[in-house]
């Protein structure tokens, strides 16, 4: 009898691990995975008869076609006295009617088809985009072409766009975060077109003729790249595009103005904006780097380790360990045409303002003094390499990415070599990059909040210059 019990007990104990093994509940720390079957998707590059490059990727999962035109233009080309001109041109190209169709009629026709055509111009690129059900593509393409090449800039819509931009200027100091985001860019790019912002005066001085001229100068078939994806028939699409964009015979020579690079002048500055708030907005940074340096990959890893992830040093210390902020981080905005920027940012309660600024500077400085750990380097590398596939999750993102690489002049094989280039970066490369591109003593520091409630005076950080936040709205 006793023997039997022992056997039963043994059975029970031997069943338990057997069950566990049967169930294969893996340990997340050590689990292994099957190989991922992934080849970098490409898009076909075709040149239209007019010379315009087009990237194509057919995908029939959804009965939708997406298209984007990227145009070499941008607010960097506008005169300081006309700041806002490029943005306004981008808005009114779509809102002001095109190809002889009145704005209301165009809106009605597009929305009845559930198609969308949108346009915009940012600092270094103009875009016109189209999305449409396959069955409405032909008509939507006509409207897209009109918006891109033949906008009418209705006088009334120009005035509405102007008055809306002016309303936005009136509201530009309502949210302290918006103030700080604007002022840090102005400080970093002072003296360069990238540091200019629209004002009541500049927006008021823009005329309809300015918009027409700005558009005419840049929106031409020899100055743009197209990206098309979705459910199309290749030869039918190319025929349509060739007829929509015929060769231009009478074009003057394309002249893109020279815009100088921003001047590297590393000099610290403390800028204070007064705002009655329980929390202080903090931004600090200076010029960064452009994509055309071999340090690019080291900087990408450095960025992840310093402030680009939830386990980055800044987030770990300021948020997770000390509970001083909800949102904290930093970012190298890699310049594509112009030198980019480095900005670190957070918001913390007024009473921990100066303490938090000091901590952030210390954390950043430490990266320039000693190498990162093996664990940090591996974690960053593995993330960058393993998450690379998320750059290719939709046909639209794949073609747009290919077109952007050409637009900004990335070298051939950039994507194909990206993971190898990341894998090659060493701890010393990161230390060298940190020393070259991080200068905490020369940070432009922008602080927006109520200085009366700060833990220590801002003046302990340097000479404080107060920002003039009065709007001076013209009557």
């Amino acid at each position, binding site marked *: 009898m006793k023997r039997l019990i022992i056997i039963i007990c043994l059975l029970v104990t031997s069943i338990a691990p057997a069950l566990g093994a049967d169930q294969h509940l893996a340990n*997340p720390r050590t689990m292994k995975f099957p190989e991922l079957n992934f080849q970098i998707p490409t898009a076909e590059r075709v040149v239209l008869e007019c010379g315009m490059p087009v990237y194509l990727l057919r995908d029939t999962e959804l009965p939708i076609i997406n298209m984007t035109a990227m145009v070499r233009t941008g607010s960097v080309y506008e005169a300081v006295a006309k700041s806002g001109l490029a943005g306004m041109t981008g808005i009114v190209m779509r809102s002001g009617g095109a190809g002889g169709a009145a704005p209301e009629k165009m809106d009605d026709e597009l929305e009845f088809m*559930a198609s969308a055509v949108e346009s915009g111009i940012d600092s270094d690129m103009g875009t016109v985009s189209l999305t449409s059900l396959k069955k409405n593509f032909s008509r939507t393409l006509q409207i897209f072409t009109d918006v891109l090449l033949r906008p009418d800039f209705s006088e009334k819509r120009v005035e509405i766009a102007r008055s809306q931009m002016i309303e936005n200027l009136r509201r530009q100091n309502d949210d302290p975060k918006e103030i700080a985001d604007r002022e840090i860019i102005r400080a970093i790019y002072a003296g360069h077109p990238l540091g200019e912002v629209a004002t009541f005066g500049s927006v008021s001085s823009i005329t309809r003729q300015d918009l027409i001229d700005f558009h005419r100068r840049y929106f031409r078939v020899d100055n743009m790249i197209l990206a098309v994806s979705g459910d199309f028939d290749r030869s039918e699409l190319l025929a349509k595009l060739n007829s929509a964009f015929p060769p231009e015979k009478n074009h003057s020579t394309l002249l893109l103005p020279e815009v100088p690079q921003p001047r590297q002048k590393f000099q610290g500055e403390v800028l204070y904006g007064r705002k009655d708030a329980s929390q202080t907005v903090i931004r600090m940074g200076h010029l960064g780097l452009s994509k055309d340096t071999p340090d690019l990959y080291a900087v990408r890893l450095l960025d992840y380790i310093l402030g680009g992830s939830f386990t980055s040093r800044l987030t770990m210390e300021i948020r997770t360990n000390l509970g001083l*902020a909800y949102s904290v981080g930093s970012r190298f905005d890699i310049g594509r045409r112009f030198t980019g920027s480095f900005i670190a940012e957070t918001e913390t309660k007024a009473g921990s303002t100066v303490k938090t600024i000091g901590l952030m500077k210390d954390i950043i400085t430490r990266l320039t003094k000693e190498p990162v750990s093996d664990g940090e380097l591996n974690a960053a590398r593995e*993330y960058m390499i393993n998450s690379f596939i998320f750059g290719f999750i939709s046909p639209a993102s794949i073609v747009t990415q290919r077109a952007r690489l050409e637009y900004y002049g990335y070298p051939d094989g950039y994507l194909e070599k990206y993971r190898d280039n990341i894998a090659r970066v060493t701890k010393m490369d990161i230390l060298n990059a940190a020393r070259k591109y991080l200068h905490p003593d020369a940070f432009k520091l922008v602080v927006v909040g109520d200085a009366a409630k700060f833990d220590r005076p801002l003046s302990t950080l340097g000479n404080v210059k107060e920002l003039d936040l009065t709007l001076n709205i013209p009557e």
Partner: protein
Amino acid sequence: MKQILLVVTLLALFATGIQAADLENRVVEHTMKNGMKLLMVERHTSPTVSAWIRFRVGSVDERSDERGVAHLLEHMLFKGTTTLGTTDYAAEKPVLDRIEEVAQALTAEKTRGKRADTEKISRLEKQLAALEADAAKYVIKDEFFELYSKNGGTGYNAFTSRDGTTYLISLPSNKLELWAAIESDRLQNAVLREFYTERSVVMEERRRSYDAAPESKLWETFVASSFLAHPYGQPTIGWMSDIENLTRSKAEKFFHSYYAPNNAIVAIVGDIDTKKTIAMVERYFGAIKPGKELPPVTAVEPPQAGQRRIELIADAEPTLIMGFHKPAIDTPDDYVFDVISMILGSGRTSRFYKKLVIEKQLTSDIGAFDAPGNRYPNLFVVSANPRAPHTVKEVEDGIHAELDLLKTTPVTERDLQRILNNIEYDEARRMGTNGGLAHNLTEYEATTGSWRYMTEHRRKIASVTPADIMRVARAYFTRENCTVGFITKKGSGK
């Protein structure tokens, strides 16, 4: 003539219904014995997968002494389990227990206000800091995040709303099992370590999102003033004093009460094999015991008997919000409101845009939407920024004029057709991303009881008539049923 022909042809084409039917056929449903619901869609566009878990518990389910706990708990569930996020849980646990004792004593003493013993407070604060430093020795910081990101996971996040709480991640498709291993562990063995530091983080989140952002502050005040009885009025993040009084014990109680497989809806969309996925999810989640059912909120908002006007004086330009009480999602009148909201507020052909932005130029920005949740009766909301020199009052009058027009003049067939056309497009586009589809599947399954709400929606909308719209407009757009919130610029003297 050509124009008319074109329109007729388009109408005929729009009458097909391929998209809704397509989704209907592609969703694979599986309900586990413990009540967990699994919704899957195979999409092989890229070797990636999105996995979302939605718990049917949100801030509307909180009692008044635990406001903010659903959201704070969501933060805490990133802190690990008995095996992840720690080097030695057996040694860590007694320290965590001691922290909780001291923190509770500290919270209790602070609530005494003026009568509190300040010496005791400072002693307890020191004790707490020392214990937290001790506990920190065992912590492996954010190990969930680290494991996911090393494996290429992106978008690892969570969000809490009035109606529910959702945890999401996208992974390379060969790593889906990592999700199952981590999430099944989290559901059973979560440890809310580093609680009191995270509570400070949430206070900073509150300051950032509401206290220092005038429009959001108005929004919070407006919603709170719209609901006197129903917990939809309380902010999901909690008022500052609510957060200050939350404890780990309260959060654990909430967790153990409601985070159970029978309250969970899982959507897995992407490069998967549904049969293998079901087997894997069963293996990791199948043995978890069901918990109790979530009790419904019993509070019923009494009918509003007069206009409420809420003013916020702030260092910001004027803003206007108007709200009208309306029934919950998936009720007959709710579909009529969907149509109304699209006619009034959707796109450049909407009435608000054409009338108030383009014709009268009273506002630069106007929108219409439902808020603050969907499971229970909610609000139809219109929000607008007056364009200077126009005032809040002028915009308010302009909005009322459009609402009144709906009461007296039937909308055109073309307006209704445009709406159906746009829904058709949305149905097609909705299939376009793994995450977007996973979001919709979990959201509608949770709030309406079935993801099929999506495939039925167009048919329901198509049955709304011009007479329905007039009836609903008359019944709901009344002075009694209206709450108005607005910002007055500080020092403007008005």
